């Protein structure tokens, strides 16, 4: 087991800095080219939320496997932990976006002077003070739990005392429960309220499933990146197979929730609900259907065979497609309501700003990977993961 410590080479950090620079440049260029502040703000929301959610899912994957007493995941545990270090960064960026005027640009319900009768009914929940209080609560919970889980995981590895394992389980359980609640309510706050006249009880879980599939895809991508750089030799085809199964399963689960929400609203045909999809069919129809192809058809058909899930040949491209696909999914959740059919599009601002965020995310993740050995040798289930092969 060599290469236990990740080294952030100058080459790697330079690449991430270049990506961040691209993001900042396109941001500036878009502003000066008159792209429209609401479109810029919507893009910033999209990317901040996307990578925040991916970070949360990274931690969620670690937490769930910890409380399920899974053994095999210990080999890849550090990746999930590293992803979670982006959460405070995203929190800061989101806060800056909101307070610098983004809140008013994106959300109709913040225009207190002209609220129609429907929005007036929701004022008890959709008002700025309560919004910010919830914002703080979410991030306090997420950041502190991410911190404690990471701390106990590192201590378990350094000191080896099983009491840290016990604490790890407790914090993981608390995180899973709180994330179940906060991911739903934060999706309502930041995403669903963009179309504040509309509502769907499945929305929170739908967004969560989308991020779950994407977070898994990102974990896979980072894993293959690390392997390419010569690390994570102990991760064999069996571990990769399990991750591939997750990507397959979560993509199908997302499609199931997508279909449930869509079909039920289509079937009942109630105008105040169907208006949501009418907007998307009218101005965003290509993205609407491409969304399904990238997020369901590609992983479903691509990852059906056993071998496709066991190596990088098919799994890596599929993971990349799913990552892009769920970005598109988030796009059609945000843009129709925040920007509208005429002004929205997929152009330089969208691509450039996303590259910037991806660069920032990778930088934070890679830096975090240097802070702990890649192999949690003292984890009580690690030996199971190291000698891992199964019958199926």
């Amino acid at each position, binding site marked *: 087991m060599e290469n236990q410590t990740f080294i952030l080479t100058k080459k790697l950090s330079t690449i991430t800095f270049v990506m961040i620079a691209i993001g900042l440049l396109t941001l500036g260029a878009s502003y000066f080219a008159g792209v429209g502040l609401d479109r810029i703000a919507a893009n910033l929301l999209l990317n901040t939320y996307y990578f925040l959610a991916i970070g949360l899912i990274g931690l969620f994957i670690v937490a769930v496997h910890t409380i399920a007493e899974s053994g095999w995941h210990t080999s890849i545990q550090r990746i999930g932990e590293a992803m979670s270090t982006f959460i405070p960064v995203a929190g800061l960026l989101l806060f800056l976006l909101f307070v610098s005027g983004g809140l008013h640009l994106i959300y109709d319900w913040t225009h207190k002077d002209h609220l129609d009768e429907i929005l007036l009914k929701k004022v008890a929940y959709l008002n700025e003070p309560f919004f910010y209080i919830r914002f703080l609560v979410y991030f306090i919970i997420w950041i502190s739990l991410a911190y404690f889980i990471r701390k106990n995981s590192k201590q378990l590895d350094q000191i080896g005392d099983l009491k840290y394992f016990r604490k790890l389980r407790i914090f993981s359980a608390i995180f899973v429960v709180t994330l179940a*609640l906060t991911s739903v309510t934060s999706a309502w706050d930041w995403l669903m309220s963009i179309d504040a006249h509309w509502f769907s009880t499945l929305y929170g879980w739908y967004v969560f499933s989308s991020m779950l599939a994407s977070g898994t895809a990102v974990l896979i991508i980072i894993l293959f990146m690390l392997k390419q750089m010569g690390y994570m030799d102990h991760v064999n085809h069996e571990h990769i197979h399990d991750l591939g199964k997750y990507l397959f399963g979560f993509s199908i689960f997302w499609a199931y929730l997508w279909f449930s929400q869509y*079909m039920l609203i289509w079937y*009942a045909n109630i105008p105040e609900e169907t208006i949501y999809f009418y907007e998307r069919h009218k101005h965003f129809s290509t993205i609407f259907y491409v969304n399904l192809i990238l997020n369901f058809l590609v992983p479903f058909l691509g990852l059906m065979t056993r071998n496709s899930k066991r190596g990088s040949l098919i799994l890596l491209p599929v993971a990349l497609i799913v990552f892009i696909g769920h970005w598109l999914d988030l796009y059609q959740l945000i843009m129709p309501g925040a920007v509208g059919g005429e002004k929205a599009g997929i152009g330089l601002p969208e691509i450039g700003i996303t590259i910037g965020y991806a660069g920032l995310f990778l930088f934070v993740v890679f830096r975090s990977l240097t802070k702990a050995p890649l192999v949690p040798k003292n984890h*009580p*289930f690690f030996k*199971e993961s190291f000698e*891992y092969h199964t019958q199926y």
Partner: protein
Amino acid sequence: MYTSPLREPLIRGNKNYKQVTDDILAPMAGTPSKYWYIGISIAGLGLLFGAWSTYITVFYGIGEWGTNKTVGWAWDITNFVWWVGIGHAGTFISAILLLFRQKWRTSINRSAEAMTLIAVMCAGFFPLIHMGRLLLGFFIFPYPNTRLLWVNFNSPLLWDVFAISTYFLVSLIFWYVGLIPDLGTVRDRAKTKIRKAIYGFLSFGWTGSARHWSRHETVSLILAGLAAPLVLSVHTIVSFDFATSVIPGWHTTIFPPYFVSGAVFSGFAMVLTLMIISRKALNLEDYITVNHIESMNKIIILTGSIVGIAYLTEFFMAWYSGVEFETYAFFNRAFGPYAWAYWIMMTCNVITPQLFWFKKIRRSVLLTFIISIFVNIGMWFERFVIVVTSLHRDYLPSSWTMYRPTIVEVGLYVGTFGLFFTLFLLFIRVFPVIAIAEVKSVLKSSGEKTKTTGHE
């Protein structure tokens, strides 16, 4: 493959393979105990009550029930959904836990899957009988007919026909394919010629050939991969019966995953109820250990919490939507004439599963038994609340009315309990209740003497 010593053993008593066979085949040998006879007699009485109720319903009509113009569905559909939901645990254990490589499923999957088949039969009875003209029940299937019409493929009620039929058939073959090797074991141990012939017939000539095992494993894995989305789809389609409508309290997008979680929740509770009794009565405590019970309780916390979050979400959206009919529907549930049903549901479904966060309660067989019964009571009331309170007061106040079950409806429900326990008690005598081959395959890694198997 290495197993960490931190893991609790799944098979106690330092068993070897022969003991495993002996222990599991023991309940099928000899004459049944007196408790078995008492059990099947009580179940038989229930069946009789059900038979009488069926006779009354068929010969005197649906008017013998309490359903009326506004509340068109009540106990009939509540019971249907309740039984289908219970059935989901079996497939969950057989299929989804197989895909997640949870070795503890091996002692309970055979019985749980049998329970599923019986529960689906009990469930299917209700849509059939609530049609009124029972003898024309075959109309629900699409076949070329002289009336020159087809069934309405766009109706969720028809999707149900396909879903329940597929679910029953696929569960049946999944259960049976797993059973074949064990039936070979029973055949080879049979002492009388008749038993040998019967089990020889049922075991399809199984020999244990490695080639056969190889294909068997592949098919089991693919069946699990098919059964997993199937089990999600069945209760999803059942939820579509309600969610595709426009009734407040029924039309809500969260129903599919919420119903599925609720189904797994109640199903595991029923599996626990049955397994806690069976393990004691059939001396299988070494195989269905406290660790198994604890694992099942963890799933109960998980699914119960998901159901709880769904309740909160629905409640919140009822207000947030600003739709006064939606808001009233939920206000009425909590404070209207059926509030007693609502609060039973909330107590049983939201509070009781949370008790399993405490390890002492999770590992207590007695408390688990009690809680499992409460969970099933709660889930029955959940379906009752969804079906009846949403119907009895919807958009038009002039149509508001109350509903009360009649003795006939109660009899039908009791009858299904009779059917359920009769068939389950027969199952115990005729088939091995634990998957013998599967338990043996995890004996080395998870038995009391943990030993590393050789490297490949």
